[in-house]
């Protein structure tokens, strides 16, 4: 058994494809590409593929990760090329690298996600107002956010690893690094806490996930770096 880790970009129209649908699309693409997929055991065998954290509907991404389990070794460039030929236009494999077959799962190791978010804020703030909003955010320190199972408390410094903002052509651009999991905040929640809480009307125009990272001895590394 061989395990090849793939980095996937999801662009434009594919942003409306849900995570579940994306997983199915990749499995079908892998079958179309005639890759020698390992099948799961049991009553209803299907391709053995494991995924990193889900991307929300409406977001694009440069950097999603999945591991394909193959019965034979195929050069990573060939896996990438064959898959890209068999995938719909807005799903692209941008990187491929083999990892140790018993490596920890992507879901287990990925802890941080980075995003670029474009927000329309009314009235349009100046850069100094944004600096002030940022300061207020970290000063406040902790927030109550609503999740499916009820209200949850999040700590600003744990949830937000990086927050850079500026205004360009009347649009606020945020560069965020956010924790995933129980300590984390979503980009939309960060926007709500920065602007909505201040009474400013805001609309998220676009949100792109630019990277997924694991923690390795205090540093952030990509899931590909971990393969070494």
């Amino acid at each position, binding site marked *: 058994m061989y395990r090849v880790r793939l980095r996937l970009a999801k662009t434009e129209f594919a942003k*409306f494809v*849900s995570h*579940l*649908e*994306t997983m199915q699309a990749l499995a*079908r*693409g892998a079958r179309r590409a*005639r890759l020698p997929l390992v*099948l799961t055991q049991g009553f209803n065998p299907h391709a053995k593929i494991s995924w990193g954290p889900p991307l929300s509907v*409406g977001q694009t991404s440069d950097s999603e990760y999945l591991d394909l389990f193959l019965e034979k070794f195929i050069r990573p460039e060939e896996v990438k090329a064959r898959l890209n030929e068999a995938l719909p236009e807005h799903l692209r494999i941008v990187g491929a690298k083999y990892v140790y077959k018993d490596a920890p799962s992507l879901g287990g190791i990925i802890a941080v996600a980075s995003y670029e978010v474009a927000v329309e804020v009314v009235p349009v703030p100046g850069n100094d107002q944004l600096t002030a909003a940022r300061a207020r955010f970290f000063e406040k320190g902790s927030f109550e956010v609503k999740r499916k199972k009820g209200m949850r408390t999040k700590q600003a410094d744990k949830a937000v690893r990086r927050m850079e903002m500026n205004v360009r052509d009347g649009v606020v651009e945020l560069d965020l690094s956010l924790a995933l999991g129980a300590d984390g905040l979503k980009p939309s929640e960060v926007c709500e806490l920065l602007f909505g809480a201040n009474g400013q009307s805001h609309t998220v125009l676009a949100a792109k996930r630019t990277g997924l990272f694991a923690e390795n001895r205090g540093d952030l590394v990509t899931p590909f770096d971990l393969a070494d």
Partner: protein
Amino acid sequence: MAETKIDSVWPRLERVLPEVERPGRYTNKEWGAYHNDFDKALVRVALAYPDIYEVGMSHLGLQILYEVLNRLPSTLAERAFAPWLDLEERLRASDIPLFSLESHRPLRAFDLVGFSLQTEMTYTNILNMLDLGRIPIRSEQRNEDDPLVIGGGPGAFNPEPLADFFDLFLIGEGEEAVVDIAMAVADHKRSSDSGGREALLARIAGIAGVYVPSQYAVDYEDSGQVANVTPVSAEAPPVVQKRVVSDLNAAPYPTRPIVPFMNIVHGRATVEVMRGCTRGCRFCQAGIVYRPTRERSTKKLLGQADAVLSSTGHEEISLASLSTSDHSEIARLLRRLSASTNQRGVAISLPSLRIDSFSIGLAEQVAGFKRTGLTFAPEAGTARLRRVINKEISEESLMEVVKAVFETGWDKIKLYFMFGLPHEEWSDLEGLVELSRKIHDLAVATVPPRRKGRLRITFNVSPFVAKAHTPFQWEGQESLNELARKRDFLKEKINRKRVAVKTHDLEQAHVEAVLARGDRRLSAAIFRAWQLGARFDAWKEYFDYSIWTRALAEADVSPDFYVSRARARSEVLPWDHIGTGVSKEFLWEEHERAADEAITPDCRGGECTECGACPVLGIPLISCISQ
């Protein structure tokens, strides 16, 4: 057909999509979809399915026509589906017209907009889509810039209730006729002195299988019955004969179909093994309108199956037809197919099985059944009533099959029945109840103790609805109250702890029954129902009977006239001018034989029943054995 450039609505649509459920319904770029240049195409066709994406994309006919049209030079075919209620609200609020998926152009921008008529309960969705697509709903209100609106599919065999809304209908099978129509549009657009919309309509009207309702006048007797349906132009034939594809092996088939991202109703590869069915069940319209039976060869099917699986990457392949286990080489086909699908980790599925051609060997090849269980359709609870509807299945055979099913290892079985059938008596309903008890007892006696907990027997019972072009088209149906009594009887008497009973909405069936044997006067009622807000009538949660009772009343239509009234042999039926190849005499004879509980065997067994289809249509029955 406007010549000015019409832009894509995508920029405006994109802004509202994040607010709606399942935005994937309205986007595109699926694997297998054609994205041709809208502005460069000469002929532009919108293939419109009057339900949401998930339902429409499960329809094989849509995929076939999509493929056929997109492969023609200079022709572009794009899909359009009914917007869900949440998007409709936003389309209306933001003044965004209904669009095609591939290039997001308004429906109005196309030369032809073709609707698939699958069930009467989608008719209000059709009107809604026309309205949202900025096309005048009534065909008489359309002008030079408006597309031609065309309807096809099984509903076109009684198109009269929709006569006001369609410029034309295509009767019968579409894959060859649609090429003729597209070429007519191309010729029209290329010639400089072609005349306007009227000239194009006249050109298309000359194509075999095309029915133009405005070329026929309908008169009524004082009693309300149709007196005659008369062509008003010399070119219009007294009967419009359906189109049939004579050689399915040569017919186009999409081996690179679209693979939706979304989980649609049936997300799997499909091959069509045969068309038509001559078993002659007397309630069944499909069995009449798709005659004669034609098969695809085993070799052809294996090739198509391989091509579809390779091009799609699906994990399941379905062998589709009206009665797949009747294919003359089904055992061989399944054997050879499963040899290759087992290797690929692909499962085979069949829509349903006939009790009389069932075999354990067959069923075992079909892995899909291991998960979902087996489905059969005895349709009536007693052998007597089964003979009335021409399903010759003795109770012994039924019980033998059920026993074999449970013995082999299945624990789920579903059986379809109808109530309110012609010549039905209370003893037949009591027989149905008895059957549920017997089947349960047999199951319990046959299934080993460790599996007993998983045992699931389901009886799915629906009210009978009489359809045009069937032996029962003359029958008066029972009233809503009477049907309710029967349904309640079944629900009460069948032990629901042992056998699950699924029933259907009687009021939905009632409206369906009005429309199924309706005439042109129903157009006003359909229009009114749409105006009053009727949408997605096929969906139980959205069907509103009060809208329909009001719409029918305001249109001065008596539902009983269409539903409960028995017709005389001599009556002119509103669909007599639409030809299926099967003679009215044959249908009447079958109607009489039903009363005598006489069986008419399948003509594929060797003895022609003289229905008329083969000689009239000029095609013989084709089965693999005869090839």
